[in-house]
């Protein structure tokens, strides 16, 4: 499956899940669909049918509210089956509305922001200690970079030269109430992270070729890939709208959204 096709599948499955569960955060999920497609489809060593393999690359979704995209990706590659995906948001389903480690293929539960990177630092450190070659990828939101714990972790990772750690920032410039710029500006985020001792690559977070290159090529120290993205990407009426941080689509909107995704070039 091409990464483009995988991304479309992630988008469609995500929409179906939030529609069925009447859940929030579809905009956040659509924002990272391309990143996940490139990671799971091309970059990560992640055996879909053996998701606990010792040598697997570790992926941590720190913006846990975008979990449907991760569940959808695991569904698209075969780690989860369709029946499991359908339980999303149901009572007692392991597929809760924030990413859950009780789901096959998921490393870590999040929901409160600013937890994924320190945890990923610990994983990367363990690989360094035990001389394992697998990598750790942590995906955070841009608004999430307002959490101080991330900056503690950035310092630590650079100090310990964790070149097996890759931080991916989903920079769609929208957070809970309005834009990041109007909430608490990150200003020159790339310069800041660079000043903390990381290698920084800024890419179009929907361009698979750019993503592939930036995520695959190894760095000397810890690597940060800032992905310029559009919240709600792929569904024109959801793009750049704060309201899709909260509302699920109705039936008509779902059909229209899926049609647009499947017909996209």
């Amino acid at each position: 499956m091409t990464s483009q096709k995988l991304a479309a599948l992630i988008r469609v499955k995500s929409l179906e899940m939030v529609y069925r569960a009447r859940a929030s955060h579809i905009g956040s999920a659509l924002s990272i669909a391309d990143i996940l497609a490139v990671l799971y489809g091309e970059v990560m060593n992640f055996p879909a049918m053996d998701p606990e393999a010792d040598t697997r690359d570790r992926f941590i979704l720190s913006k846990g509210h975008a979990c449907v995209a991760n569940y959808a990706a695991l569904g698209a590659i075969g780690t989860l089956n369709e029946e499991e995906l359908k339980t999303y948001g149901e009572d007692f389903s392991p597929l809760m509305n924030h990413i859950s480690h009780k789901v096959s293929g998921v490393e870590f539960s999040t929901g409160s922001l600013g937890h994924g990177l320190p945890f990923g630092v610990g994983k990367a450190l363990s690989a360094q200690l035990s001389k394992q070659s697998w990598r750790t990828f942590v995906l955070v939101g841009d608004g999430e970079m307002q959490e101080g714990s991330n900056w503690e972790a950035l310092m630590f990772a650079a100090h310990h030269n964790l070149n097996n750690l890759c931080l991916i920032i989903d920079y769609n410039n929208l957070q809970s109430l309005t834009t990041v710029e109007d909430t608490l500006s990150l200003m020159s985020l790339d310069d800041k992270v660079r000043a903390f001792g990381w290698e920084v690559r800024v890419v179009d977070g929907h361009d698979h070729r750019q993503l592939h290159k930036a995520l695959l090529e190894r760095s000397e120290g810890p690597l940060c890939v800032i992905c310029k993205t559009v919240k709600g990407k792929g569904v024109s009426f959801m793009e750049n709208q704060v309201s899709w941080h909260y509302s699920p689509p109705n039936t008509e909107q779902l059909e229209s959204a899926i049609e647009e995704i499947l017909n996209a070039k």
Partner: protein
Amino acid sequence: MRNEFINSLCIAAKTNEKIVLVVGDLGYSVVEPFAEEFPDRFINSGIAEQNMMGLAAGLASEGYHVFVYSIANFPTFRCAEQIRNDVDYHKLDVTIVTVGGGVAYGNLGYSHHAVQDLALMRTMPNMRIFTPTDAEEVAGCMAYLVKNPQPSYLRLGKAGEAVKNKSGFYPIPGKLNELKVGNVNKAIIFIGRLNELAFNLGSEPAFKNFSICSLPCWSMQDKQVFANELKRYNEVLVIEDHFKDAGLCSWVQEVKSEYLLDFKASYYGLGFDSIRQVASEATLMQKGGLCVKNITTNYLRGIDSFA
């Protein structure tokens, strides 16, 4: 206690390559033996407790048993959510080790006083709490922890605690460690470094022939075991170097209430006067009411609280 901790950890780390020590830029003149013997497994994470606890969880998720060492409030309150979400919820093998339980860091002030730490840690459903009273209990708790790694909180005093145990102690969660056997079905129950206070109380006529028991290991999971322990007694006196609210005293009251136990009980924790001024540990303990005179006087008057 802290020297015994590092001694036990060094011994365990010789044969267990999965033991890692993470410190939050504290431990001068304590942690060096480990740092020197196991430099790869000694990590000073700097003054950044949220990252410290998060990375400890990450290391533990890959099979390491991580001991996180700092002064009482820093690896607890400062990173409470990392403990709750990352360590406890994921049931990871992280042992949080704190020095300075109670007001052991007297003159350093309120920022360094651990008088609410048990309140925080005992609300974590998977967390076992270890409150040893002397070096022998520290050694036993460490042996238990190394054999049974789990989310855990090891609360130490500082140094110079009187030794009341014989060697070879090994804890059983929820069980009392009877250090002096009484003969009146009454007991003084205490945690941590309060053993001298407990024994001094035991010399008072009011508490003559009381058993004297430490409680080295307890948690939310161990209430049933502890309830069975309490059935031996028709009166208990509970003392702790922590606020009475939400610490050991509250825990005993909860057990008594939940298991419908019928015995006389008196509870003595640190009163709020212990934090209204700064002084040495001994003075603050007196101000907070944790001294023989205050406890005996109030006990005889039927008064529990010093707040």
